[in-house]
């Protein structure tokens, strides 16, 4: 809201930049809610001029994708940022100022519906760290996803369960781990390795998750 107001106020067109980034290795232990500050400090270091929200406590205008649980690797996470100006080559500079483990893979100027509207599905892969998961795990995870949110698709291969789920705010990695724990398949977070492979828009016709860029 604040962004739109200032756009009108300034009469300028603030570029809205959508990025797809990865969150890997140690930095997966950083909370999702800490990411706005991390990205905006990196943008400052890169000398990029961000648009600020109006109001009592102005902060850089941005919008994050669905929360990614602590400890979960994200291979293609979306976020959006508003800048005062934007040049294509900025993202190389921005990338060079990010802490280790975070990397912007793609970016594009977008308009249209808000990010939250477009993120309707995610693909998770779940495997065991101490022992391989069996097909019983796949059934448990399918049930959990269907119950908590929405299950679009699932597959099982060599000890890894791949789930495509919807209703991302209700069906996150936490509920999947809890389901495995409750069924006695594992004892909790240390026993599983979860990766969110992609986040995007569910396309019923093709049965696929369409990328956001």
């Amino acid at each position, binding site marked *: 809201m604040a962004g739109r107001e200032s756009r009108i106020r300034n009469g300028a067109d603030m570029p809205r930049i959508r990025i797809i980034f990865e969150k890997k290795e140690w930095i997966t232990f950083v909370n999702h809610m800490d990411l706005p500050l991390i990205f905006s400090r990196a943008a400052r270091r890169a000398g990029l001029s961000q648009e600020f929200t109006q109001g009592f406590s102005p902060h850089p205008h941005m919008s994050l994708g669905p929360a990614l649980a602590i400890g979960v690797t994200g291979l293609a996470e979306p976020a959006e940022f508003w800048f005062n100006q934007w040049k294509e080559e900025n993202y190389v500079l921005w990338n060079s100022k990010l802490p280790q483990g975070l990397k912007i893979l793609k970016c594009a100027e977008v308009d249209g519906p808000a990010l939250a509207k477009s993120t309707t599905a995610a693909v998770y892969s779940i495997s065991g760290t101490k022992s391989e998961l069996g097909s019983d795990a796949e059934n448990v995870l399918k049930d959990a996803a269907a119950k908590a949110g929405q299950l679009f698709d699932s597959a099982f291969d060599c000890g890894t369960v791949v789930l495509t789920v919807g209703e991302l705010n209700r069906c996150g990695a936490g509920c999947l781990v809890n389901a495995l724990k409750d069924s006695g398949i594992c004892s*909790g977070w240390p026993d599983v390795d979860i990766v969110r492979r992609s986040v995007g828009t569910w396309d019923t016709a093709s049965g696929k998750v369409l990328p956001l860029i």
Partner: protein
Amino acid sequence: MAETFYDDPRRMVLASVKRPSRYIGCEWGSGPVKDGTDILRVCYAFPDLYEVGMSYLGFQILYGLTKSLDFADAERVYAPWPDLEAALRDADMPIWALESKRSLSDFDVVGFTLQYELSYTNVLTILDLGKIPLHSSERKDNDPMVIAGGPCALTPEPVAPFIDAFCIGDGEVVLPEMLRVLHDLRGHSRAEKLEALAKIEGVYVPQLPPSRPVRRRIAEDLDETFYCREMIVPNTGIVHDRIALQVFKGCTRGCRFCQAGMIDRPVRERSSESIVKQAETLLKNTGWEELGLLSLATCDWTQLAETLKRFEPLLKENQIKLSLPSLRVDAFSVNMAAELETMRKGGLTFAPEAGTQRLRDVINKGVSEEDIISALDATFAHGWDRVKLYFMMGLPTETEEDLAGILDICNEAVSIARRHKRHGDVNVSLAGFVPKGHTPFQWEAQLDRVSLRERGRWVKGHIRNRKVSLSYHEPDQTFLEGVFARGDVKLAPAIEEVWRRGERFDGWTEHFNFERWESVFRDLDIDADSYVSRTRNVSEKLPWDHIDCGVTKEYLKKEREKAFSGEPTHDCRKGCNGCGWQGVADTEWCRHAKD
């Protein structure tokens, strides 16, 4: 070490603890770890949580300084919260340095900062989880050299058996010499290293008692001394989440209760030009959105007004907030804060310290009734709604009248606020006074726990205004702080034993367990009371006499006498008081010997 991150057993441990981001490193400005075998590897260890330790400017400076030496590299470790400690012990896994994830025992040097007496048990946790023998005497040639600095290093005896060498004074000047010696003696015996360290001025090696007091070393020209051009920027919220610029070291006010003001002499200022340049560099390199000007009394900085003017365009252009952590109690300081757009939110904090003029003269606070009233008046006139006031209880010569004076000031604040039609919330923090070594009150008895609690309750109970809220420090913690602040080496076994029985994070009320301390003192037959309850004779030998902070004992005695006759000592910028630094330090106010 594990082949990949995904096989790393530390990943599994972190998956089971709260706020694992404390333990991963990966911050902007940390690392990269230097390659090579001829590098002296130093791990700086902060004996408290990451959020606290990352807010400490000293480590930011020493980290950058160490990395700037071509023969050394720096990494960091912080005290693990008990959940991680339990997980590490379960997995029999050593604690690691954030950057390389190396175990602490693989370092050449582990360097602690001792900021606070109640973090001593955490020093032992870090050593033990680092698989380093707790006692200096038990360490072998291939164990790391354990060094320590910070204010508590000036009264080091309670932790002396755990530390190989103390750095007395500014680390910016002493540490490079210590690290050089340790680098050049790599592969030599521990005894040789200790001997070489003991020869450096400003280094105290407990195993090699010095024949004359160890003299505190200082950096004289701060513009020419190492300061940060880069800083480590946390990925997660910390206590002071901003760029910190130290605008001067020391303080000229001479408050008699204040250890920092005595042990950090003489005053040494940065120039405005150099600070502005540093601020520009750091804003660019860190991306931080806030800037704080740090010192013992930033409003006393002679360059403040000029610097604030020069900051203006820099702050506006980048939407940067500026904060002054401690405001002097007078209208001038408040008016200056009022000009800073970014200070307009929240409230202002003042420290009158004592409730009556008589007692403020005893402690040489240098703040008059009029200063307090005018500061409060300016605060509410400028539209602030809240003030926070710091006071102490248990100061030498304190009576009920002085405590009542605290209430008077609070009530006055409320009525001034009413006059200016402001909400006027008054938040009071009442700390128990702890006499510290190297101050004019180092010989005084500390008020006992029962009386401290009584006085705290008395003040709290006499608040008649709903706008005033007060909290007083836990007297048991104040007592323990006092014991260690003026303790001797006989206390070391108590620290070790209480730690063995599970004591951790004594500064955190949720972990502090006084009964555990009491039972340890009883079982080891240590009379803890004796360290705080008696007035020491001024001729008696003190456990920190072998540390010379630069201020002479004669000066402290004279200040003590003046305290009891209520005689103020003026700010030494107005003329030298002869504390011991005159003619010794080549700094603006001390260059010339007192006539």
